[in-house]
C-alpha cells in the first residue's frame, strides 16, 4: 500500500519535472481524444441519418475516423519516444538509488495510467464543448436546419476512453520493453553523443529527386479523371518517399552551399546557425520531412475540398442549364404515337399552367434528342463506345436533334436533305458513325438546348448535330443496338422549364405538383417513366456531398496541424538542448544574449522555411491532378482551385510562422537558462 503511494509520488514528480515535454504530449493526445469524441458524437447523432444525403456524411466520418486513428497512433509513438528519450536519465537515477526494474515499471505504469486518464478526461471535456460547434458547422455546411439543445453522447465518450486506454497501454508496453533492455549505465548516460559531420548522400539525393520527379510527372500529366484517383495515391506515395530522401541529402547540400558562401557564412547571425544545422541535418531531416508532408496534406485537404464547395453554383449552372427538366425516354415503338398525339406540347402547356401561379414568368421548351458516345478512329470515322470504357482519350459525346425541333425552338428555317446534317464541334466534310454517313451542310447558327449531363463534368469533346428527320434518331439508335450492348439508350423527350422569381426551395417543393401536371397532360401511355429533375434539388445534393468533404478536409487539416505543431515544438526543444552547450561556449567567448537570440531566430527561420516552401511546391505540383479529380464531382476550374489554394497557403503559412516563432521562445529559454 505504501509502495503504491511511493509509485504515485514518483510518477507525479517525474511528470511534473519534465512538464515541458510531457505537457505538449498530453495536450496533443487530449486534442486527438477530443477529435475522436467529436467524430463518434457525430456518428451517433440521430439528426444525421434522419436527413437525406447522410450517406456521404457517414462515409466522410468513417474515413475521418480511420485517418484519425492512424495519425493518433503516430503522434503517440513519436511523442512517447521523445518523452522516453528525455527521461531515461531520471529513470536510471531511480535504478541506481535502489529501485528495481519492477518498481520502475510500476512507476511507469502509474504514469501511463495517470496520463491516459488526464488526456481522455480533458479530451472528452474539450470534445463535449466543441462537438456542438462541430455539429453546427457541419449542418451549416450541409445547409440543413440547425436544432437547438446540448448533447452529450455517452457511447462516444466510452469509445474514446477505450480507444485511448488501448493506445496508452500499447505505448506503455513499448516503453517497458525499451527500458528493460537498458543497463543502468545506459539509463544514466545522457542522450547526446558526439556526431560527425554528415556527408552529402548522393545516392539518396538522386533517388529522392527521381521519386519526387516521378510523383510530379504523374501529377502534372493527369488528364483522365477516372485514372487520376489511382494516379493521385501513387503520386502521393512517391512524393512522400522523395520528400523523406531529399530532406536529408538536400538539406546537407543546401547548408554546405551556404557555408561555402563566405559572405553569408561569416556573419554573426549565420555563423553558428549554419554550422550547427549541417551537423544535425540527418536527425532533423525526418522531422522536417514529416512536417512538410503533414503540411502538404493539410493544404491539399483544405484547398481541394473548399474549391469543391465554392464551385457548387458554377457546377450547377453548367450541369443544369435549366431550372427544371421533366424527361422520359421514348421507345422506338412509342415514337409514332408520341408524335401523333402531340403529348410533348400538351405537357409543356400543363407544366406552364402549373407554374404560372408561382412564378412571374416561365420560359419553356420541349424537344426530342438522341445522345451517344463515340471515339474517333484512325480513319476519321467515329466508332461507338463500349459502356465500360474508362479511357476518355479521343472520346466524343454526340447530341442529335431534329431540324423540326430546332426550327420550332429557335424560329429557324433549316431545311436539310436526307444524309445532310448541321454539325458543330467536328470539322470534317463527312461524319461517319457506324454504317451511317452524314454530309456536313454547315454549323449550327444558334446554340442548341442541350441538357447538361453527368458526362459533362468530364469535359469530353462534344458534337452537336441537327438531322433532317426523327427517323435519323431511330437510325442512330439502331447503330448503337448493332454494337450488341445490352442496354440501349432510347430517344429522350425533355421538357425544360425556367421560372423567373422563384426560389430553389419553392421549386423543390413544387416538384411533385409539376410531375403530376405533366403526367396528366401526357395521358396514361406516357406518364409512366416520367421523371423530374431540378437544379435546386441537385444543388442540395451537391452541398451535402461537398459539404461533407469540406468538413472532412477541415477536420483532417486540424488533425495534421496538431501533429505539425507538436512536431515543431519538440524539434525546438531538442534543438535547444542540443545547442545549449554550444551557445554557452559562445557566450563565454563573447556572444551577447541579443546575438544568441538573433542567431536562434536565423536558425529557426532557415530550418523551418524548408518544409513550408517544399509544401508550397508540392501543392503547386499537385494542383493539376487535384483539379482533374475535382472534375469528377464538379466543374471546378483551375482558377477557382488556384484561388482556394493560394488562400489556404497564405493562411497556413502565417499560422506556421507564428507557431515557429512562438515555440522558438522555448528554445531561447533553454539556451539562455
Amino acid at each position, binding site marked *: 500500500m505504501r509502495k503504491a503511494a511511493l509509485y504515485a509520488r514518483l510518477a507525479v514528480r517525474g511528470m511534473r519535472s519534465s512538464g515541458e515535454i510531457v505537457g505538449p504530449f498530453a495536450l496533443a493526445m487530449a486534442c486527438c481524444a477530443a477529435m475522436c469524441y467529436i467524430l463518434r458524437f457525430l456518428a451517433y447523432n440521430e439528426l444525421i441519418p434522419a436527413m437525406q444525403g447522410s450517406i456521404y456524411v457517414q462515409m466522410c466520418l468513417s474515413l475521418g475516423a480511420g485517418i484519425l486513428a492512424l495519425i493518433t497512433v503516430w503522434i503517440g509513438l513519436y511523442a512517447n519516444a521523445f518523452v522516453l528519450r528525455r527521461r531515461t536519465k531520471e529513470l536510471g537515477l531511480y535504478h541506481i538509488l535502489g529501485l528495481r526494474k519492477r518498481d520502475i515499471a510500476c512507476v511507469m505504469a502509474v504514469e501511463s495510467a495517470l496520463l491516459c486518464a488526464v488526456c481522455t478526461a480533458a479530451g472528452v471535456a474539450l470534445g463535449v464543448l466543441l462537438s456542438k460547434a462541430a455539429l453546427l458547422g457541419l449542418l451549416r455546411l450541409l445547409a440543413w436546419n440547425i436544432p437547438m439543445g446540448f448533447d452529450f453522447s455517452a457511447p462516444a465518450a466510452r469509445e474514446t476512453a477505450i480507444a485511448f486506454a488501448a493506445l496508452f497501454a500499447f505505448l506503455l508496453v513499448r516503453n517497458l520493453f525499451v527500458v528493460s533492455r537498458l543497463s543502468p549505465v545506459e539509463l544514466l548516460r545522457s542522450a547526446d553523443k558526439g556526431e560527425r559531420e554528415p556527408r552529402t548522400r548522393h545516392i539518396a539525393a538522386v533517388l529522392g529527386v527521381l521519386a519526387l520527379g516521378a510523383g510530379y510527372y504523374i501529377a502534372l500529366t493527369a488528364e483522365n479523371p477516372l485514372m487520376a484517383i489511382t494516379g493521385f495515391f501513387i503520386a502521393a506515395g512517391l512524393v512522400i518517399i522523395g520528400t523523406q530522401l531529399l530532406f536529408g541529402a538536400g538539406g546537407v547540400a543546401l547548408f554546405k552551399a551556404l557555408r561555402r558562401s563566405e559572405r553569408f557564412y561569416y556573419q554573426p547571425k549565420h555563423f553558428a546557425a549554419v*554550422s550547427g544545422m549541417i551537423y544535425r541535418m540527418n536527425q532533423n531531416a525526418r522531422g522536417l520531412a514529416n512536417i512538410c508532408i503533414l503540411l502538404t496534406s493539410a493544404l491539399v485537404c483544405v484547398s481541394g475540398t473548399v474549391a469543391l464547395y465554392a464551385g457548387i453554383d458554377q457546377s450547377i449552372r453548367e450541369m443544369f442549364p435549366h431550372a427544371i427538366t421533366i424527361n422520359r425516354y421514348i421507345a422506338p415503338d412509342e415514337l409514332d404515337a408520341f408524335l401523333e398525339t402531340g403529348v410533348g406540347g400538351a405537357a409543356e402547356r400543363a407544366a406552364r399552367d402549373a407554374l404560372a401561379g408561382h412564378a412571374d414568368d416561365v420560359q419553356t421548351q420541349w424537344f426530342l434528342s438522341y445522345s451517344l458516345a463515340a471515339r474517333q478512329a484512325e480513319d476519321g470515322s467515329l466508332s461507338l463506345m463500349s459502356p465500360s470504357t474508362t479511357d476518355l482519350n479521343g472520346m466524343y459525346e454526340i447530341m442529335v436533334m431534329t431540324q423540326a425541333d430546332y426550327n420550332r425552338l429557335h424560329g429557324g428555317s433549316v431545311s436539310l436533305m436526307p444524309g445532310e446534317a448541321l454539325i458543330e464541334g467536328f470539322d470534317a466534310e463527312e461524319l461517319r458513325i457506324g454504317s451511317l454517313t452524314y454530309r456536313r451542310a454547315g454549323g449550327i447558327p444558334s446554340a442548341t438546348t442541350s441538357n447538361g449531363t453527368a458526362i459533362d463534368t468530364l469535359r469530353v469533346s462534344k458534337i452537336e448535330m441537327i438531322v433532317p428527320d426523327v427517323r435519323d434518331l431511330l437510325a442512330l439508335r439502331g447503330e448503337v443496338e448493332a454494337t450488341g450492348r445490352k442496354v440501349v439508350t432510347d430517344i429522350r423527350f425533355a421538357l425544360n422549364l425556367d421560372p423567373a422569381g422563384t426560389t430553389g426551395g419553392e421549386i423543390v417543393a413544387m416538384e411533385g405538383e409539376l410531375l403530376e401536371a405533366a403526367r396528366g397532360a401526357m395521358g396514361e401511355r406516357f406518364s409512366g417513366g416520367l421523371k423530374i429533375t431540378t437544379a435546386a434539388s441537385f444543388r442540395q445534393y451537391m452541398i451535402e456531398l461537398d459539404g461533407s468533404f469540406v468538413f472532412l478536409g477541415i477536420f483532417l487539416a486540424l488533425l495534421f496541424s496538431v501533429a505539425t505543431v507538436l512536431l515543431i515544438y519538440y524539434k525546438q526543444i531538442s534543438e535547444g538542448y542540443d545547442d545549449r552547450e554550444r551557445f554557452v561556449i*559562445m557566450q563565454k567567448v*563573447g*556572444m551577447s544574449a541579443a546575438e544568441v537570440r538573433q542567431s536562434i531566430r536565423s536558425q529557426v527561420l532557415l530550418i523551418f522555411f524548408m518544409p513550408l516552401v517544399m509544401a508550397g511546391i508540392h501543392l503547386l505540383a499537385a494542383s493539376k491532378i487535384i483539379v482533374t479529380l475535382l472534375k469528377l464531382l464538379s466543374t471546378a476550374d483551375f482558377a477557382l482551385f488556384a484561388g482556394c489554394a493560394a488562400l489556404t497557403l497564405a493562411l497556413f503559412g502565417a499560422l506556421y510562422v507564428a507557431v515557429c516563432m512562438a515555440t522558438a521562445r522555448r528554445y531561447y529559454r533553454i539556451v539562455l537558462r
Partner: protein
Amino acid sequence: MAFLEIEHIEKVYTPRLGGAKVRALADVSFTLEQGEFLAIMGESGAGKTTLLNILAALDKPTGGSVRLCGREMTAIPEGELASFRRDRLGFVFQDFNLLDTFTLEDNIYLPLVLQGRKINDMRRMLRPIAQRLGIAEILKKYPYEVSGGQKQRAAVARALITGPQLILADEPTGALDSKASDALLRLLGEVNEAGQTIVMVTHSVKAASHASRVLFLRDGRVYHQLYRGSLTGEQMFARISDTLTALAGGERDA
C-alpha cells in the same frame, strides 16, 4: 597606474530561499602589471573560480572594485559586457570549449565573426598566430579529429586572435597528458614573453611554476604570494610545493 587593480573585492552568495550566506571572496586585493604571468592557486572552495569569473566579467563582486587599464569593470553596462569580453579578454578553458560543429579555423574565427570582421582580415590575422602555435596544418580539421594538445593550442589561438589585453586561463592543462601539458605551458610562457599578460587558475604545481608570480588564495583571502624573480623552474616548483604544504597545514590548525 597598474594594468589590473583589484581592491578589496568581496563576493557573497545569498541563497534564494534564505539560509546561510556563503562568502566566496572575503577581501582580495592585488595588482597586476602589464606583461605579468600570474598563477592563482588554492584548494577547492578557496575562491579561485569566483575570482576568475569576476575578472572575466561573467560575475560581479558584491563589494570592492576591479579596474582594467583604469576602467572600472563593475561599472560596465550589461549590454556592453559581451563585447567587452570579446574585445579585451581571451579565454583558455580546461575542457577547451571548442565547438564540434566548426573546424579549428572557424573556431578560432568565432570571436572575430562576432566582432563583424571581414573574412580576408580574419585570414590575415590568423596566419602568423597559426604559424607560431604550430597548428597551420590542421586548421581544416574538426576538434574531434585532433589530439587534446592540438585542441588546446587552437583554443589559445582563439584567445590570442583578437589581441586581448588579458588572457584568462582556467586549469588549461587539466585535461592534457603531461607531455601536452609541458608543451602548452612552454607555449604560454612564450606568449607571455612576447608581452601578453596572462592570469591562470590552476591546481597544478608544475603549471604554476611556469608563472612569473603565484598568488595563493585561502578562504576567500590572499594567503601568500611568490615571485619567481631569478629562480629556475625547479626552484620555483619547490617553493610552491612548500607553500601549499604550509597552506594545508594551516587548514588543519583552523
